[in-house]
């Protein structure tokens, strides 16, 4: 066996290790039902959940709890996933500034007791990149 063959085999071994390890690290998109089930089985790996905020008649999100006066690092809200399961979520950080306007919320974390502990929140907001509405900026007017 030539040295170059050993070298190539070493490369393949490292590449395989990378693939395996990435597969182990990769997270999944789940609903709250599965997140609860995982927690019940003692599986504390972090998952992604995509959901929406429940809103009242005036389109205001309901169930947001953030009082910086008492604790600036505690923000709790309710998220409804695509299977319509609602779940209380706690985020130990200040409330993201544009949270109320977000159309879709992606959280990562895991269930702890009765609440979902989120360590990351990704917001998907309307009008994020493509400007479609002329009146949005209140800058347009007829010449």
């Amino acid at each position: 066996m030539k040295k170059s063959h050993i070298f190539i085999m070493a490369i393949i071994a490292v590449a395989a290790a990378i693939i395996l390890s990435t597969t182990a690290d990769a997270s999944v998109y789940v609903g709250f039902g599965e997140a609860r089930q995982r927690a019940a089985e003692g599986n504390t790996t972090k998952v992604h959940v995509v959901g929406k905020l429940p809103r009242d008649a005036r389109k205001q999100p309901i169930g947001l709890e953030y009082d910086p006066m008492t604790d600036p690092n505690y923000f709790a809200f309710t998220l409804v996933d695509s299977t319509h399961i609602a779940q209380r979520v706690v985020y130990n950080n200040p409330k993201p500034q544009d949270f109320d306007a977000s159309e879709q919320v992606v959280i990562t974390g895991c269930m702890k007791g009765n609440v979902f502990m989120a360590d990351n929140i990704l917001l998907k907001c309307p009008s994020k990149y493509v400007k479609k509405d002329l009146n949005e900026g209140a800058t347009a007017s007829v010449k």
Partner: protein
Amino acid sequence: MNLLVGQIGHLSVILAFAAALVAAYGYFQASRGRALGDEDQSWLRLARGAFFVHGAAVLSVIVCLFNIIHAHRYEYYYAWSHSSNHLPVQYMISCFWEGQEGSFLLWIFWQVVLGFCIMKFNRRWEAPVMAVFSGVQLFLVSMILGVVLGGVKVGSSPFILLREFLTDLPVWKMNPDFVPKDGTGLNALLQNYWMVIHPPTLFLGFALTLVPFAFAIAALWKRELTAWVKPALPWTLVGGGVLGVGVVMGAYWAYETLNFGGYWNWDPVENAVYIPWLVLVASLHGLVLWQKRRTGLRTSFALVVATFVLILYATFLTRSGVLGNASVHSFTDLGLSGQLLIYLGVFAVLSIALLVSRWKEIPVSEKELNGYNPELWVFVGATVLCLGAFQVLYTTSIPVYNAFMGFIGIKTNIALPADQIAHYSKFQLWMGVVVALLSGIAQIMWWQRNNKETVVNALTAPTLLALLGTALTVLLVRYNGLTISPAYVMLTLAGLFGVLANFGTIFTLVRRGVRLSGGAVAHLGIALMLLGILASAGYSNIISRNVSGLLYSREFDEELNRDNVLLWRNETTPMHGYQLTYTGQFFEVPGVPGYVDKQFLFRTDDDYKALARAPITVAGKTYYKTGDTVNILPENTYYRINYKDVKSGEQFALYPRAQVNDEMGGGGLLASPAIKKFWGHDIYTHVSSVLDPRKEKPWSEPKESVLAVGDTIFLNDYFAVFRAIEPAHETAGLNLQKGDLALQADMIVSGEHRQYHAHPVFVVRNRMVGRVPDEVEDLGVRLTLNAIDPTAGKFTFGVSTTQKDYVILKAMEKPFINLLWSGTLLMAIGFGLSVRQRGGRGAVAPETEAAPEAEASAGTRTARPQPVS
């Protein structure tokens, strides 16, 4: 409305496309079936002419697009969506490439420039290389073509009119010639000088990867399998330097502007450039190996092709919308995914097929390398770089797997790792260790005759010193109460070894009277960067963590880290050796150094103008007098935070920013940090949450009280003394005229820490009464002088209160981050030196035949040191 400029622009795009097609075909025909240097002259002339036309057309497109932005022609979607009336001229340049079309244009422009350079400096290779160039230009221009062919939209034109883009607006029915008065503006995050120079640098780097690729393809096509390395090498060096600097510029911009707490977030958009850069650097090592030691040619071919294909893949990732939720800052999806995929597919398949068909003909070195050959270590190093690139590529592509499986009808739910930083770091750290060690070993061995004795002699000193330094570092880290993991110890050791070995190489070479080695300087820079990253990212310390002392047990028993601290306005809070005070909100005023307190400014109906309520004076110079109109930039509010070092008593102020940003997140506020730089560390501070500066404060119902001069009233938690009534003097914004009567009360309000003057004003004009309330912003108190009873000497005041002002803040310490920036600078200098040493013979001078040079290289192999990249 000016439709002409857009029509000229669009025609120029079409002309550029057609000319690129002619140039590609012409160059192809000129070289087809002929040896290198023996081109068909008539085809060559045609192709050259076509490429000149192409260049002129591209320039015309750029001029037209810039005119549309500069002249505020909002009838065009591009100007309307990326610019506005208030935008300073220097940022109009950034508008140009904020959109996808403009950034494609920038890329196209750089490739035109490089094409002309090839025509001038690499005559012998012109025809086949420029055939590839023109082919790539053809695809790139098609991205901004904006024509519909057989029902399929090809490209997205930057010259599209607003009415063609937003077709459903009702306003077009009433007035088809409607033109908005103002644009929606450039994303304020991009209004930063780094965004003026970072994209051109990056796209120049992108464009430069085409040069070695085009040479490699030309070489495979013409079966000139060895001669291409010499002309391609200097271009690859420039590419490696420019792309590397471009990546770090982007990182520095993110550090200064975004608020994720660092300079690198492993965002797919960042990775998309990092991956090809790693492979580009690996290919560079392959080329140097062939040029100097006649080995590694197949590797060079494969890596040069891989670099270019990865650049195309990066373009596909960031511009097709496939990343979706995974990235916060990819481009808008313009519906070009199919076109991008074809582009990627065509070039990947053709170039790989060509490479495979010629693979057996590429010469290989017969010599079996052993541990005393530096070539072996360079080769291993390049392999490690590629493995590192593969790791990032494999993870970054997770959204692509989902999209692909969805495309073939299988639903998958794989997501990116929940903790991306930990995931990438655990691999990239070890890549750094190996790269730093090998760079040191290979640099030392490259310049000397190697046997057991010389290698041991040369490596002993740096190894011992690095071990000593690592031991000291570990002790110092422990002494400061921190822990250090074995992986960090290894990186420290490798980084120190890399620094010492490369420094030693430079020193030895200079002593021997040889020119400064660019390669050793660049490797020294890389080793310093690794140490800087280890210190600043590995030991980034959140100094605002758990400082409030209060603990609210909610759902959890265990103690959680609470990273943010609440600061009331003008109240001092202790934080990790500092006394912190938030002292108010500030605006940026063009022309005035520093920031101006909002309390000095009286806002008007025009958002961009305010009146000075008091003289605006900085360092003895008065910029505005009371009542002057002041131009302000209303998007940005700066929160002044005073830091006082408890031990030394030293003070400094930081101004973290909250920016009203409609683009990133539905009219949200975006925080940008403020950074205080010390030689050994940075203090990095951003606001996490503030009271929305745009919203009117909700004031309580005013409570009335009737007072005489000298009386005291209670205002919630505070009290105020009504000292006097006097003619109003601070009348900015009142526009007092003759005959008007203006009186103001002088109230002294006692807060927790200091006293405030409040001057509510009462005006009588033409028997009409006006009232100007005064506000003590620190206390959230507003006083109005409602009525005056001159006979009884009684004055009626209205008192309203609001939420006291506060900020929620996060602060971090970044140790030794300057090592990273200075390492980058050294790396850039190293690349520059290499280009100069090599470029003198490779790029500019007329080329010679490859054969004698091979002998020369073999002859000088060990005898005499040569400059190597």
